Every structure is written in structure tokens, then in C-alpha cells.
């Protein structure tokens, strides 16, 4: 692989609450090549969103980034000053959020919110910035942008609001777009439109995409590579194809079985037993072991490292030790 666009090493972000330390991101490493579409998959509470926010250094007390490095376009973001970091946020790196109804300022016209994103990164008068905003609104295919520009968020549908958030991000032609569950809060029909829009923008702008989701259907359709996250750690990674056709980690397999696809019938749908782990009190050993159907004796006390296999899939599971793949059939 050429020089990666983003390379994260051993990122640790903890949340210091009254009930203990929540290890939301506990030694995450991942890379994204320029223009690549990468998925970060996991249940709610697995630390995906906190990972995404940490890439932009957004976590605020009680959450804190403790260690690791985030190399982006040749610089370690964790060592930049706050001012330098502000230039990255919404500049080279843009973020799209889950619920567009709460992520827009309710008292500000949407056109002004987009124009603000422009003015924060380029010295520009308001009129010129609004022209840029209009351009971005056309890019995300908002009909009648001249009119919509002067609307307030509550006057728009969920899908339109999400387009506004995306428009905010594309004004700066970022090299990396992070989309944190961009379709979760939307209707199914709108979900497809938004995903197609994001995919189209990626080719149009040449940006890389980090898609954070629990929807494996989206991953299969839109992503090149996948990171599966569980209990604040990456438990498996590989190309989308490998992860779909030859998942090795029992958690990934369980995740697959719990997904409804066109070839799956409702009666074969299987939920994963138990609950996602409490990130403040992770079990000893492998954090998935209490829920794992293929648990070995050592899993309860020995935490497995990430085992790489010849095919490029890496799994944090004792069953994958030595690169052997005897269980896959």
C-alpha cells in the first residue's frame, strides 16, 4: 500500500465518569489509504463513535485521549496546537453525524450554517461564502437551493437535513470524510439515497470515507475494507470480501448471522446472546468470551492479540492463532 492518508496507532480514549473509567477506545490501530472507503463496524457502545471523534480530537472532558498517534497527511494530529487542529476539522477532514435533526443549530438558517463552514477555513466575505454554500448545496443535490438556503432546520425533512450536514463537509473538499452512522436516523428509502450520494461524492471529490455503522449491508455495498470493533478494540479486520465470506472471529460471525439479508429468512435470524460489554468493567481475557459460542478455556483469562493470516485478515481470537484457518468451511 502507498503512503496511507490516515494511520492510527494504539489510540486510547477513556471517559472518566463517577462510576469508573469507561475504556471506550482501548488501543485502536487502523489505516486508510487515499480515496479508500473503510468501514468501522460494531454494536452500539463498542466505541466506534468515540474512535471517530478522537480522530478529530473532539472528545471533551470527562472523555480524554490518553495516548497513541493519529498520523494524517504526514502530521501527528495529537501533537498539533488547538489552532492547527481547528484548521484540520472541517478542512481536510470532515465529519457527518448520525441524527441530522439534532446536529444542526435550530436557530440558524441552513445556508448560513454552510457558509459558516466556508468562512471558518477561507478568508471570504459573507456573500462569497453564501455563493460557495449554494454551490455545495447543488453538489449534494438539494433541489431549489436558493430557496432552501433561507430555511431553518425544522422546515426540512430528515434526508434534506442530512444533505445540509454533508454540504457543510464538502465545502472544503476534504481528503477524508468520516460518516458516523449517517443513515441510522433516516427512513429506509432515504438511507439508500444518502449512501449513494456519499459514494458519488467520494469519487467526485476523490476523498476517502470512513463509514461508521452497524449495518453490514451498507458495508458490503460501499466499502473496500472493514474494521470490526468490540469492547473498545479492533477484533477483526480485512477486505470487505474476506470479512463477508470468511469471517474468522466468532463475534464477526455472530454479527453476520444477526443481519437480515435478501437471502436470509426471518426465522433464521439470530440475535447475539447477552449484552454488549460494559466498557467500564470489561471481562478479563477476551472481552467477547462471556458471549462467545466457541469459547476455549484460556479465553477467560488470556487476552488474545491480533493474529494476521496469509489472506490479510487479522483476528483478535485464539482460534486464529498461527494463521491456521481450520474452522472455516
Amino acid at each position: 500500500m502507498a503512503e496511507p492518508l490516515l494511520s492510527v496507532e494504539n489510540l486510547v480514549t477513556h471517559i472518566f465518569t463517577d462510576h469508573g473509567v469507561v475504556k471506550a477506545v482501548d488501543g485502536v490501530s487502523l489505516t486508510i489509504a487515499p480515496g479508500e472507503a473503510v468501514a468501522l463496524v460494531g454494536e452500539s457502545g463498542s466505541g466506534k463513535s468515540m474512535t471517530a471523534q478522537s480522530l478529530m480530537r473532539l472528545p471533551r472532558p470527562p472523555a480524554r485521549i490518553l495516548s497513541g498517534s493519529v498520523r494524517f497527511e504526514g502530521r501527528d494530529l495529537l501533537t498539533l496546537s488547538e489552532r492547527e487542529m481547528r484548521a484540520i476539522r472541517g478542512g481536510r477532514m470532515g465529519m457527518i453525524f448520525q441524527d441530522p435533526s439534532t446536529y444542526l443549530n435550530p436557530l440558524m438558517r441552513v445556508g448560513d450554517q454552510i457558509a459558516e463552514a466556508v468562512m471558518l477555513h477561507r478568508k471570504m466575505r459573507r456573500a462569497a461564502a453564501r455563493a460557495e454554500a449554494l454551490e455545495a448545496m447543488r453538489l449534494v443535490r438539494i433541489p431549489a437551493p436558493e430557496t432552501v438556503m433561507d430555511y431553518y432546520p425544522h422546515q426540512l425533512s430528515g434526508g434534506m437535513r442530512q444533505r445540509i450536514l454533508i454540504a457543510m463537509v464538502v465545502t472544503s473538499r476534504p481528503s477524508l470524510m468520516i460518516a458516523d452512522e449517517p443513515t441510522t436516523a433516516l427512513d429506509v428509502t432515504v438511507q439508500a439515497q444518502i449512501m449513494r450520494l456519499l459514494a458519488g461524492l467520494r469519487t467526485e471529490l476523490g476523498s476517502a470515507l470512513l463509514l461508521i455503522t452497524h449495518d453490514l449491508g451498507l458495508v458490503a455495498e460501499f466499502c473496500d475494507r472493514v474494521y470490526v470493533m468490540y469492547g473498545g478494540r479492533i477484533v477483526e479486520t480485512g477486505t470487505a470480501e474476506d470479512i463477508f465470506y470468511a469471517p474468522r472471529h466468532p463475534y464477526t460471525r455472530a454479527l453476520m448471522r444477526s443481519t437480515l439479508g435478501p437471502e436470509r429468512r426471518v426465522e433464521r435470524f439470530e440475535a447475539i446472546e447477552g449484552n454488549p460489554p460494559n466498557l467500564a468493567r470489561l471481562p478479563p481475557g477476551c472481552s467477547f468470551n462471556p458471549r462467545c459460542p466457541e469459547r476455549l478455556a484460556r479465553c477467560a483469562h488470556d487476552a488474545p492479540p491480533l493474529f494476521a493470516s496469509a489472506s490479510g485478515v487479522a483476528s483478535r481470537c485464539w482460534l486464529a492463532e498461527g494463521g491456521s484457518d481450520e474452522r472455516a468451511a
Partner: protein
Amino acid sequence: MRGLDISLYVVRRLAQAVPLIFVVILLNFFLIHAAPGDPIDFLVGSMDASPEYIEDLRREFGLDQPLGTQLWAYLTRMAHFDLGYSLRYRQSVLDLILSRMPATLLLMVTALVASSAVGILLGVIAAQRPYSATDQTSTFLALAGYSMPVFWLGQLVLIVFSLHLGWFPTQGMYSLRAPAEGWGRIVDVLHHLALPAFTYSLYHLALIFRLTRIKMQETLSLDFIVTARAKGASEGRVVYGHALRNAILPVVTVIGMNFGFMLAGSVLTETVFAWPGMGRLLYEAIQARDYPVLMGLFTVLSLMVIAANVVTDLIYAVIDPRVVYR
């Protein structure tokens, strides 16, 4: 389109105030009639008046008529803005009240504007660093501020700043020796205004501070604040450009509501500082059982509160685009 909506809303909101005003006037009338004591007793005082003379007086003021007739006469006069004639001041009640209104408005508006501005600013600063020393100190002071009764605080500041330190005058609105016009006059009035305005505004300041602080903290934890940070906005831009306007909405409502409480509070403050306004007039009128003045004051004060509420609603509608104009 929104412009037209707003004008319709203004008209409708004003129309809604009309029945309210009518009810207030009725209420004032019955309140005064239910109160014990009779103005004639006060006029006559301890002098030995003959029953015939008292009857004459009662007839003169219409007090011998049945209640319905008195009410009708009262309403007719109100419709002509005739608030009656003060028995004590020997002056038209409307003129009397209007002559006292500027002093009260000066004191109130100064206190309301200054305390709201300072309260909001302190609240915003405290909210940015929750549980810091600044936050803890200002929260403690605010608690102290609104636990102190006005009459007590007023006398305390008088003793310290006027009697001991001699920095401020003890009473009234102007000194006799000061120039009667120009800058000298303005400085003199401001000098007299300082202590009563401070006393008057401390409670309000504490309230606005605490409300702004909590609302600001809430707003800063909302999702759209993350969006603002993610697009590269500075902390100042996030706080003042995004959070403040959202946090301020409920504060605006409370400031408007407090206008009414402050009018009520003007009785105490103006009495302590001998400020020649409507509050002091009310106090004097109660002492003198000056019914026409009391009724007039109640009516005018009620109108002012209703007007303040309408204005608050309109301001709210202007700053919150989500208000539905119904």
C-alpha cells in the same frame, strides 16, 4: 411571508391583551370595594364631623350609589382615561401617576438591563468551566444575592456606602445644589441612581446568572455544538455564535416575567431610598387610603405588566424561528 406572519401575530397578540385588561380593571374595582376602611373616614379623620356632612361627602364621591351604578360610572371614566382625582394630593390621578412614572422606569430599566447583561455574561463564563473556582464562587455569591431581602440589603448598602464611606447620597433622585440641566444634572441623577439600582437588581442578577449558567451548560452538551466544533469553529465562536442564542431563549422569558416582579419590588426599594417613583406613591397612597390613586396605580401597573408580557412574546418570536404564529 414570515414578515406578514409576524405582523399578524403582533395584531393577534395585542387583541388577546384586550379582554385581559378589562378583567384587570374589573378586579381592581372589586378589590378596592372589598377592602376595609372608607376614604371618607380618612378625609374626616378625628375631627368631629356631623353625620350630615359625611353623607354629603359620600354623595359627592358617589359612594351612596348601588355597586352596579358605581361600577358603570367607573368603567365609563376608565374608557376616557379618567382615573379620578386624588383626595390627598388634590390633583388628577393620571397626572400624578404620569409624573412619577419616569423615575420608576429609569430605575427599573437601568436595573433590569444592567442585571440581565451582567447576569448573562457571568452565567456564560461560569458555564464554560463548570465546577471551577470561578464557577463555585459566583454560584455561592448568587445564592447569597437572591436570599437577601431588598429592604434589608437596601439599608445595609445605605449604611456602608452612604453613611460610612460617603460615596453616594442617602436618598432622593437629585440634590438641590446640583445644576438643573445638562451633564451636571445627568451625573447627579446617575449618582443618586447607583445604590437603589444596585439593590434593586441584585436579586434579578443572581436569578439570571443561575438560569443562564444552567441553560448554557445544557446547550453546550447538545449535538449541534459538536457539529460546530467539527467544522473548525473556535471555542469563542461555539459559545457566542452557536450556544448563547439557544441558551438565552428561556432567559428572555424570565426577564420578561421579572418585569412584573420588579414593579412590585419597586415599592420596597423606592421607599428605602426615598426614590420619587410609582412604588413610593403606592406606599403613600396605602397609608393615606387614597383610593383613587391606589386604583389608578393598580390599573397602570397591570397595564405595564401586560405590555411587558406582550413585548416578551414578540421578542421570543423574533429570536426563535420555530415559534408558530397562531
